[in-house]
């Protein structure tokens, strides 16, 4: 790390970068941490670790680069290293299956979901949030990054260290799984599937 060229920031500039470039994203970061860990205290720890790490390496941050994507990347890596290892459960995402997704004959079925717009309009409670939280963490992550935070494929690829094609297919699988969950809620609410 010592070898990389670094911006020379004075202490005052460091605090300015921190305040102007990093802190504005703290609510998004907390939301991301919370949805990854599903625990407020763990989310706080993750956000704190992320910001302190970003501050420690602030000289490797160049003004004008995408601070938000960098922070999300740090948080996601901390999550994998500190939290995911604790649970011995391997990721449930079957990447082989994801990659062959577009080659399946199932495309027509995918497009004609039985979920209807009318049933969504009545989901005023926590159904959406619960449905999102119930997805496997890899699927949850891409939905958060794309739909909540508006990251593009290439930014997500950098945050997650995966190829763009995998981002795309994982996102689409995630959307379908989310629709399945929402269909179940809709059915419980009395919406008959056609």
């Amino acid at each position, binding site marked *: 790390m010592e070898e990389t060229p670094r911006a020379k920031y004075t*202490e005052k500039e*460091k*605090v300015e970068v*921190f305040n102007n470039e990093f*802190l504005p994203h*703290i*609510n998004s*970061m*907390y*939301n991301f941490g*919370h*949805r990854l860990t599903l625990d*407020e205290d763990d989310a*706080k720890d993750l*956000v*704190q670790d992320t*910001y*302190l790490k970003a*501050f*420690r390496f602030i000289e490797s941050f160049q003004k004008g680069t995408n601070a938000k994507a960098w922070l999300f990347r740090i948080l996601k890596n901390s999550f994998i290293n500190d939290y995911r290892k604790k649970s011995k459960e391997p990721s449930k995402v079957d990447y082989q299956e994801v990659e062959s997704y*577009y080659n399946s004959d199932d*495309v027509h079925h*995918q*497009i*004609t*979901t039985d*979920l*209807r*717009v009318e049933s*969504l*309009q009545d*989901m005023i409670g*926590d159904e*959406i*949030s619960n449905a*999102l939280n119930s997805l496997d963490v890899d699927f949850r992550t891409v*939905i*958060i990054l*794309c*739909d*909540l935070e*508006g990251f*593009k*494929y290439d930014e997500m690829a950098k945050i997650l260290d995966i190829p763009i094609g995998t981002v*795309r297919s994982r*996102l*689409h699988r995630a*959307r379908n799984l*989310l*629709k399945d969950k*929402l269909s179940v809620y809709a059915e419980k609410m009395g919406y008959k599937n056609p």
Partner: protein
Amino acid sequence: MNRPNPFTGSSGKKSTCLEMLHAILDGDASEEQQEYFREHMDECMPCYKSHELDIQIKQLIKSKCCGTHVPLDLVEKIRRQMNSIT
């Protein structure tokens, strides 16, 4: 309406409806592709319905799953720890 399909990949393979829907929804479509898709929806009911649903879900996710605020004391705690680093 026989304009060239701007979704056609470098391989010359035409994108399926599903691939178009995703590119649009994920914000990965160019102006030209968006325009093409708007016209396509007039001719393709499954795309029209699916797009409407996708947009609704996306908007719902945004409105229901955002807006949490970080606990106030956390920012102060981070600042204190920053000062001990420098």
